[in-house]
């Protein structure tokens, strides 16, 4: 369950990142599509965080388990904050925030999946 969800979240984050890049490229501001992807991504990240709290003790080197938990708990903060910054900014840079945030979520979620499959 955890790796499947983590990879699904990674894919969504890549989609979010790409959508923002495309809008930024075309000099557009944030739109409903981006908001929807961010909202679905957020739900996935919250579920992932809850699952991680419940199961992180199954990861053997405690240090890896701690990293796993830290990532899972940090991730839900990213989409809302990025969306806030993106709405506040009224230029092309608005969507570049989404690119940075999407990339961050994708990398961290992929790392979560990797830690789980290596050490759990």
């Amino acid at each position, binding site marked *: 369950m955890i790796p499947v969800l983590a990879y699904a979240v990674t894919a969504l984050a890549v989609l979010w990142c790409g959508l923002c890049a495309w809008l930024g490229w075309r000099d557009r501001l944030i739109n409903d599509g981006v908001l929807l992807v961010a909202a679905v991504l957020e739900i996935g990240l919250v579920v992932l965080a809850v699952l991680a709290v419940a199961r992180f003790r199954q990861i053997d080197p405690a*240090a890896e388990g*701690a990293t796993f938990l830290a990532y899972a*708990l*940090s991730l839900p903060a990213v989409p809302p904050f990025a969306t806030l910054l993106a709405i506040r900014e009224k230029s092309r840079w608005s969507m570049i925030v989404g690119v940075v945030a999407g990339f961050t979520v994708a990398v961290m979620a992929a790392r979560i999946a990797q830690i789980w499959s290596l050490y759990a």
Partner: protein
Amino acid sequence: MPDTPASATPSNSTGRGPGTVIVALYAVLALAATGRSVLQITEYFSRAPLAYVLSAVAAAIYLVAAFALATGRRTLATAACTVELVGVLAVGLASYAAAEHFPDKTVWSHFGSGYGYVPLVLPVIGLWWLRRTTTPPRT
């Protein structure tokens, strides 16, 4: 809410345009450093107290920098970026010279290599951005 012209709010210009992205990058680093240092300090502090305390200090400074840049507090932002630059250089050197005190990766050890060298590059970008957005003298 009507947009105020840029000239009316020079103090807030650090958080606009490309500055938004810089604020976002600082926020991401603050998040990463906070998460890591909270767990390091609560779970196995005794292993490397110095490195973990520095992680927490770095996290706090990134938060301050993100906040100062977002709200256009130039002096505070300049101070935070400068401390970061000094910190990443000092801890980067120390982590090679005294490796036994830095058993785990922290944000600043090895010049931030665990974070794609972003901790080394970001304060430079931050300081450059603060310089660039300084209102030029009017003629």
